[in-house]
């Protein structure tokens, strides 16, 4: 194997020789630099390969004896030793790879290409970092530290900007104080022990202060909060290529030094390191939330990530070795952060978009360079720790190491900080994806501006002369409006279509992204293989294949067909192996998902991401059905969340809503993460697991369900997603939380207090369910936007399912699943029918519609069946659910909950009637006279769902009997069958007979009317009524639709205050205020920063005293 000494000697030598090569030609020098970096990357990789080939497993790999070189021919204490073990090799490979990519990036970009001097400095920097990684001598570390620092100081100034000089000077002041402290520490340690070799220093005794001085100095180099003001200026002001090097390469070396020091440190030292890391992590994230400059935001994110790694170093041993954890985090951070800095470099040739608030050119970027934006998404996802990227696995193992040791504060810091990080990173991402009319930060549901109505040919029959006049008026106003817009539109377009040139080649960034992706997949394979759960990676494979198809611009229809085929085959293989509850939900997820995909077939052309995301989502739902291990489950759950986020963000004005969805999903996922770690093994119910596991897991699942209080992501996400996607979210995805509740039901039946055995978590869930049903119904009543109405309606329905589930009785569980299945059917009908209406009318506001029954009769019929099934009116399926619900509730003795559920179901009538009336009945609007029935692809799933509803209505036992079998054995039998009559302990219900009686009593009057009203029964035209002592001539004055339930609103008064929304807004504003007030400490004054550095050192020393 090649000696490590070359890793230092070659770049150092080359740095000095480079000016000579420049004489031979600029390209020769560049080629030399790249060749050296490639060699430096290959070197540690070659060691790794040899080790991996020679050792059978990970444990052996970690014990491999390091490759050591003693310089000058003397043994270690006298000479300086360089040693490369597995950790060194890993970090070196990453550092040199990143440096290679970084320098390549700077060489191939179109402006500010590095000069020969810069290349020399870059090589010195790499030398310094390699030296830091390899050397085992404390003073040698100082030398390399200074080499790294000095080359960094000089590099910062290289772009010659005013701000860079300012930042660099601040950095020098802080850095020189830190190195003074290091020097004092080194000499003090030498005085005490007589040695500077890491391998020969004594492991204990009297060296605490000296070591603390070293640690402090290293920490200061790692930019701890609050002594890091200078570093942020550097990230903001320096050339992004240099910032990437500082963040990814420079810091990694110092971090690794600190890691090498850990065997010498006492637990107090480690605690201080962990604490410093935690403080840095959380405060950097909070402040980053308030940043408007992207590079400064990335700078805060960098310091935060290093803080996280400090936390890992300081918190000691976990379930997997620290070095593996560190390697995952470090590699993830280096590649993604450097990649993002390069991206800002690429897209910001003229420094226009460094500010987050300037969104003008970003959407254009998304349109012109979708692949670039996809790449940004991948980098951000990796940085935010989403699956399958390396930091996702690191986060899992970090938390599972912290929780059993009871280090709750650190757990809270890690997860809270990660949540905020995902928040600001994806807020930036939404700037790329959102359309220009998208308001972005939606924090209040609002009536959105309408889709500009395309001027349709307004010919054809109009009912009356005055109707024609009205039309003429309208046409005139439309013309005026069009004129007005033609004047404004070019400006808008010009602004939006600002030419977005990518300044340079994205290849290095793409390579970094690919390394991340493959690293992530490798990590996934590595972590999932021990549990034989590699099959969980199927959704990822689907994602990759789909991404490929998308890149080839295959039409969406074909992609969807492929997806449906894939899901069909998958279901065919998977479902027969399932039984009981998983089978029910398997059918729900997969077959239900197929139903939803039919509606998507309506899309024409190539819709980037649509088919692939939908398919991936369904496959990841499939994962939930059979996953066994906790990690596998968490992986699948997060994958599902992120994919559904991407699906939502496709909506026209969905960026704010999607961000909210992501935040709540991730919050829920983190809650689940801690809950899972608390479970002993697997994630199936355990009798012995703690109450907290139940609470945390439950919270996570309730967020997905959209329980009241945790629901505020729901309306926006359902409403702003694309119309067919809303249907998928509401009818299929929302059941994922319910399924997990069923799976982990055992956690919810223990009493909260020993003295009150009746009050279990399930009891609380029951109340939450009833409240959710009521709140959802009430919120739905007062919406003008049809999709918000349906969204809240879904929330209310999920409330019933939760309530039924929480009963923990046979009838309750049957009903919960019965509702889940029928909800799938009728919500598909409603959402898809409404999708058709919105598609045709171009508006979502109900009061702008009306009288559509004559234009879209099939959609009307579908909605009619849907609302009857939803409301619970016999003879359709809804009544079965109501009957089982109340019967089960009264049997259980939950009378008040039953009353509340009944009230909620009465309220549901209000919005259901409003929905069907204001859209389909009343007065047809002039602009809708010519519209056609919804597209065929929309009608097909509706018709299938109608057939399903009718079948179950006619023969309820077709559904109820299998459900009864699915949960057989869980609970004592409380229902019985007498023929087709379902008998409970309280009452009975014969769905079949009800259907026949209803048909009978319906047919008799119908026949009578048909018989008697055959002659002289004239159908009149639209305006043939008398209203307000006149014959109305325009629908606008005659269609009663806006603010339909005004009296109810005034009757309820302050009961309608959106408490939950208010609460979460308050939380957000508190975080913001903390961020705003904390960042005031960064006054911009170099001396203040120096003072912080000094004070930080003093405080750490004092804490050490206190710690001993």
């Amino acid at each position, binding site marked *: 194997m090649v000696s490590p000494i070359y890793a230092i000697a070659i770049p150092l030598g080359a740095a000095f020789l480079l000016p000579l090569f420049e004489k031979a030609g600029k390209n020769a020098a560049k080629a030399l630099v790249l060749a050296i970096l490639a060699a430096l990357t290959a070197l540690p990789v070659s060691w790794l390969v040899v080790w991996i080939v020679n050792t059978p497993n990970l444990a052996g790999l970690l014990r491999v004896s390091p490759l050591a070189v003693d310089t000058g021919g003397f043994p270690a204490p006298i000479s300086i030793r360089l040693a490369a073990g597995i950790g060194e090799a890993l970090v070196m490979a990453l550092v040199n790879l990143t440096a290679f990519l970084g320098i390549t990036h700077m060489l191939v970009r179109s402006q500010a290409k590095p000069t020969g001097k810069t290349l020399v400095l870059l090589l010195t920097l790499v030398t310094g970092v390699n030296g830091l990684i390899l050397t085992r001598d404390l003073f040698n570390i100082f030398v390399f530290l200074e080499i790294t620092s000095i080359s960094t100081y000089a590099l910062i100034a290289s772009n010659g900007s005013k701000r860079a000089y300012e930042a660099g000077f601040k950095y020098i002041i802080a850095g020189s104080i830190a190195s003074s402290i290091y020097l004092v520490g080194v000499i003090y340690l030498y005085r005490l022990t007589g040695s500077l070799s890491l391998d020969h220093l004594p492991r204990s005794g009297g060296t605490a202060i000296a070591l603390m001085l070293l640690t402090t100095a290293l920490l200061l180099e790692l930019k701890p909060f609050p002594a890091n003001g200078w570093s942020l200026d550097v990230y903001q002001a320096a050339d992004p290529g240099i910032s990437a090097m500082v963040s990814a390469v420079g810091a990694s070396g110092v971090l690794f030094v600190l890691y090498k020091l850990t065997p010498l440190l006492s637990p107090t030292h480690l605690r201080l390191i962990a604490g410093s890391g935690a403080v840095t992590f959380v405060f950097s994230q909070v402040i980053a939330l308030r940043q408007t400059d992207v590079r400064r935001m990335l700078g805060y994110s960098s310091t935060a990530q290093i803080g996280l790694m400090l936390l890992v170093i300081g918190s000691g041993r976990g379930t997997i070795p620290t070095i593996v954890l560190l390697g995952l985090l470090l590699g993830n951070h280096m590649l993604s952060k450097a990649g993002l800095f390069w991206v800002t470099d690429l897209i910001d040739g003229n420094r226009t978009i460094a500010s987050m608030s300037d969104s003008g050119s970003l959407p254009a970027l998304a349109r012109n360079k979708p692949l670039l934006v996809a790449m940004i998404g991948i980098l951000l996802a990796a940085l935010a720790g989403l699956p399958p990227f390396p930091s996702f696995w690191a986060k899992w193992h970090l938390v599972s190491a912290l929780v059993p040791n009871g280090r709750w504060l650190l757990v809270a810091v890690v997860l809270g900080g990660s949540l905020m990080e995902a928040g600001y990173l994806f807020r930036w991402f939404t700037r790329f994806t959102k359309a220009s009319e998208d308001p972005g930060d939606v924090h209040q549901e609002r009536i959105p501006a309408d889709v500009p109505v395309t001027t349709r040919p307004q010919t054809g029959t109009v009912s009356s002369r005055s109707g024609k006049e009205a039309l003429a008026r309208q046409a005139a106003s439309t013309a005026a409006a069009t004129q007005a817009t033609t004047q404004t539109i070019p400006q808008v377009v010009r602004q939006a279509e600002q030419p977005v040139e990518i300044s340079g080649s994205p290849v290095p960034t793409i390579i970094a992204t690919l390394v991340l992706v493959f690293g992530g997949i490798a990590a996934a394979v590595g972590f999932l293989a021990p549990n034989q759960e590699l099959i969980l990676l199927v959704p990822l494979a689907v994602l990759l294949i789909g991404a490929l198809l998308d890149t080839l611009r295959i039409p969406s229809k074909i992609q969807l067909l492929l997806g449906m085929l894939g899901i069909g085959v998958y279901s065919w293989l998977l479902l027969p192996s399932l039984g009981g509850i998983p089978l029910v939900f398997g059918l729900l997820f997969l077959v239900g998902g197929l139903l939803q995909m039919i509606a998507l077939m309506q899309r024409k052309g190539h819709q980037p991401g649509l088919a692939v995301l939908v398919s991936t989502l369904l496959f990841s739902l499939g994962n939930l059905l059979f996953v066994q291990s906790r990690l596998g489950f968490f992986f699948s759950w997060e994958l599902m969340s992120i994919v559904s986020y991407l699906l939502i963000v496709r909506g026209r004005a969905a960026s704010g809503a999607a961000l909210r969805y992501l935040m709540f999903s991730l919050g829920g996922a983190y809650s689940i993460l801690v809950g899972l770690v608390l479970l002993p093994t697997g994630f199936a119910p355990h009798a012995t697991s703690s109450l907290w596991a139940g609470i945390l897991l439950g919270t996570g699942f309730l967020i997905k369900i959209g329980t009241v209080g945790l629901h505020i992501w729901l309306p926006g996400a359902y409403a702003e997603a694309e119309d067919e996607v809303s249907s998928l979210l509401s009818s299929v995805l929302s059941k994922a939380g319910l399924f997990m509740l069923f799976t982990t039901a055992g956690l919810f039946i223990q009493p909260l207090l020993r003295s009150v055995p009746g009050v279990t978590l399930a009891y609380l869930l029951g109340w939450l369910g009833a409240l959710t049903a009521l709140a959802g119904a009430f919120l739905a009543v007062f919406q003008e936007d049809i999709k918000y109405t349906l969204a809240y309606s879904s929330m209310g329905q999920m409330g019933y399912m939760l309530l039924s589930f929480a009963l923990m009785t046979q009838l309750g569980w049957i009903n919960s699943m019965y509702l889940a299945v029928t909800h799938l059917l009728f919500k598909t009908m409603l959402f898809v029918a409404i999708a058709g209406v919105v598609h045709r009318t171009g508006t979502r506001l109900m009061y702008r519609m009306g009288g559509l029954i004559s234009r879209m009769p099939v959609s009307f019929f579908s909605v009619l069946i849907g609302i009857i099934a939803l409301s619970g009116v016999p003879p359709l399926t809804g009544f079965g659910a*109501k009957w089982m619900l109340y019967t089960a509730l009264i049997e259980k003795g939950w009378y008040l909950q039953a009353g509340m559920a009944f009230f909620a179901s009465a309220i549901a009538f209000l919005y259901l009637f409003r929905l069907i009336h204001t859209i389909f009945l009343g007065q047809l609007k002039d602009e809708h006279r010519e519209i056609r029935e919804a597209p065929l692809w929309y009608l097909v799933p509706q018709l299938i769902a109608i057939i399903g509803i009718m079948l179950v209505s006619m023969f309820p036992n077709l559904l109820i009997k299998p459900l009864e079998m699915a949960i057989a054995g869980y609970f004592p039998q409380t229902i019985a069958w007498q023929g087709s009559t379902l008998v409970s302990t309280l009452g009975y219900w014969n769905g079949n007979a009800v259907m026949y009686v209803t048909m009978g009593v319906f047919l008799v009057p119908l026949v009578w009317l048909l018989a008697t009203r055959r002659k002289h029964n004239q159908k009149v035209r639209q305006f043939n009524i008398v209203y307000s002592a006149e014959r109305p001539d325009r629908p606008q004055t005659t269609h009663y639709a806006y603010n339909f339930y005004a009296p109810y609103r005034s009757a309820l008064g302050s009961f309608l205050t959106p408490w939950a929304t208010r609460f979460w807004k308050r939380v957000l504003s508190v975080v913001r205020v903390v961020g705003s007030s904390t960042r005031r400490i960064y006054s911009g004054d170099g001396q203040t920063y120096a003072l912080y550095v000094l004070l930080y050192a003093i405080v750490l020393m004092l804490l050490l005293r206190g710690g001993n």
Partner: protein
Amino acid sequence: MKDIAMKALYTLISLFVILNYGLLLTGTMARVRAKVQGRIGQPVYQPYIDILKNNFLRTSIYHGVMFFLGPVFRLAGGLGTYLFIPVIFGSTIFSNFAFSGDLLLVMYFIFFGQLGMALGAGQSGHPYSPIGVSRGLAQMTAFELPFALAVISIASQYGTLSITGIVAAQQGGILNWVAFTNPLAMVAGMISFLGMSMDNPFSIVLAPQEIPIGPPTEMNAGFLGMLQTNRAIFNGAKLVLFMNLFFGGAGNLLVMVVKTFLLYFYVVFVGASFPRFRPDQSIRFFLGIPTLIGIAAVVLQMV
């Protein structure tokens, strides 16, 4: 086959009885109201005349399919509601189709006709129809709450949701009636009944005097006749239901007539004595005291 024929015959008898009784009751009460207001009033048989006249009017108009179906839905709702209630305790003829489902079925089937009617009226395009429907539905949600609580209280009291079962449990003397064994439930239920009957003070839904409001606005001829038929049957069904729930049911037709007459008289009595609520007032009224009484009735069953 013979069973089915017999059942059909019984059904027809039962419907014939309730239709005539309902119409006569409506006529009688109209006269009672007139006397209170110092008028002579219409003849008792006036409802028959109205229905016959409306059904045999030569011409009529309609606004569309849903408009046509609205009255059908309405009457089907009335008929169905009635047919799912056992009218006379222990009688085969008047047991109707109560075997199809219990009290919950009846409570939800009431909505069937209301929903269909509202839809039919909606297609007329007349703003008064949806205004009336919006008020009616809003008020309905409010008065259903105390009623539901009363029903839950009774169901837990007797451990059954079967109407026959509830009636059976009240046999054996006046003191066994729910009205005496569970007075709070009875009070909550009877206040709801006022709202359900849409008489004063809860008559804003129809507002029959000032503006021709509510679902029937555009209804004419046979459509209106069908609605009037329904009103008689539906009224009867509701009266029978409340009689069964709170006042011990009826062992024979005579008892049924007396009890339901008194129940209806109570509605008319209150209606003649009180002025009218605005919609928001009536909503707030039902969600206030009656709901609290209902909750008290339920809580008493729990402890």
